[in-house]
């Protein structure tokens, strides 16, 4: 995908984890939007042709009226993509969606409602390990607050050089995590197998996250940025089932 974002572009496209694209509209110009999207679809038809997209109007200074939004949706449709709804923005967007009978998809980070001033809890300051090399964009698949998140499940081994990241949820690995492999979760991590690589729980700063391992031989474990490396694994822990948790700033590990 081209990373160049020219401000003259009528929109830009983002992919979330469920493979839904977000058309962020920068100005209300249905014809330009259609042209721009058509170009994208032609450039990568496998990725964008008949792709489900949501329309994000939050970057417009004033919310367009129903007719203009209708024209934008039609522009997306005629470019060969399938608009499925509006992205959550302000309460006005909500009202607009209701009037137009469109679904409103995903609540984004609070950055979308700057006027309200109710900033979320501060991001964790402590990040001892390098931030996971994963996409940091708001993800459309983030469920609305209060719903069940479940856990991400990885069946089989995580091989050296591979990285698994469970965003906003727990991670369960049924298999071994090899030397040089990395498993990361914003929630807890459960590994039913050998951990020889790295495991980092609470990657967004949740100090209550824990790591559970059925065969402990880790290179490194971290919770909410507090980490321990193991040049030598203590004899009483090696090969044992253990759990790791934080008490204050101290990362504790004990046999289960």
């Amino acid at each position, binding site marked *: 995908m081209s990373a160049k974002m020219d401000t003259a572009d009528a929109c830009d496209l983002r992919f979330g984890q469920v493979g839904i694209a977000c058309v962020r509209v920068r100005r209300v110009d249905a014809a330009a939007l259609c042209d721009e999207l058509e170009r994208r679809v032609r450039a990568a038809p496998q990725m964008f042709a008949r792709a489900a997209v949501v329309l994000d109007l939050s970057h417009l200074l004033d919310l367009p009226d129903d007719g203009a939004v209708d024209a934008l949706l039609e522009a997306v449709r005629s470019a060969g993509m399938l608009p499925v709804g509006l992205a959550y923005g302000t309460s006005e967007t909500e009202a607009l969606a209701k009037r137009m009978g469109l679904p409103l998809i995903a609540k984004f980070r609070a950055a979308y409602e700057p006027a309200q001033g109710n900033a979320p809890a501060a991001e964790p300051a402590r990040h001892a390990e390098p931030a996971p090399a994963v996409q940091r964009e708001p993800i459309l698949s983030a469920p609305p607050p209060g719903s069940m998140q479940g856990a991400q499940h990885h069946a089989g*081994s*995580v*091989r*050296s*050089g*591979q990285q698994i990241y469970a965003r906003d949820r727990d991670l369960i690995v049924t*298999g*071994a995590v*090899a*030397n*040089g*492999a990395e498993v990361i979760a914003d929630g807890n991590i459960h590994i039913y*197998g*050998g951990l*020889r690589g790295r495991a980092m729980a609470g990657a967004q700063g949740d100090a209550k996250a824990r790591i559970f391992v059925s065969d402990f031989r880790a290179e490194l474990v971290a919770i909410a940025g507090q980490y321990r490396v193991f040049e030598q694994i203590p004899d009483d822990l090696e090969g044992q089932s253990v759990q790791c948790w934080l008490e204050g700033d101290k990362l504790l590990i004990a046999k289960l």
Partner: protein
Amino acid sequence: MTAEIIVVTSGKGGVGKTTTSASLATGLAMAGKKTAVIDFDVGLRNLDLIMGCERRVVYDFVNVVHGESTLKQSLIKDKRYDNLYVLAASQTRDKDALTQEGVEKVLDGLSEDGFDYVVCDSPAGIEKGAHLAMYFADHAVVVVNPEVSSVRDSDRILGLLASKTRRAEKGEKPVTQHLLLTRYNPARVAIGEMLSVKDVEEILGIEVVGVIPESENVLTASNNGIPVIVDANSHAGQAYGDTVARILGEERPLRFIDVPKKGFLQRVFGG
């Protein structure tokens, strides 16, 4: 009927990929399968030496990929088995001379010519040459030595086989993985200088398809341009024979993994 494509790979260099490719291809031919073995190590051509056909290379793999010669002109018939062919690498080019489309064309051509098996001898590393060698594979033989760095590199390769191959990209049945432990020395395993079969299987989480004992015969055979599997008297040759049979679906117990017991005469006179 399409040819089964087997890649012999490892990540790490010097673990016995080319030796294995030569013996595997020869073993498949001995079992009556029409087999081609391709050297993907463009720039560091070795397979032709081990197969003993280095003086008969006229056109090579890169020539076919670029359409400068036909497959028929470039395939070198083995002097021992007439259903075995070698496609040599080019020594004067580098790995960028290969393209995915070119490799696919060659593999399709071999399928059309009625080959049962195509063995791809991968270069070391995880760059273009190695990627192309594994990309179209149906089976992978991952060669590993009983030492930690080789095991880690193999782990990386197993991960790539599960994600960077055509089968993975198309979401088809994954590449069948076979782990082959080479240069195994039971005596050194017994005194803790080498990882055991069990250690390697445990770290990598898959079972071995064969264990090739460390043996002087391998070096001698390679230097003489004879794949070691042809030497039925050597333990390494027999172990390769077992391995090929297992890849073809036969069940055989592992041999040569325990310290050989000294015979009566050796005990009396000192071994």
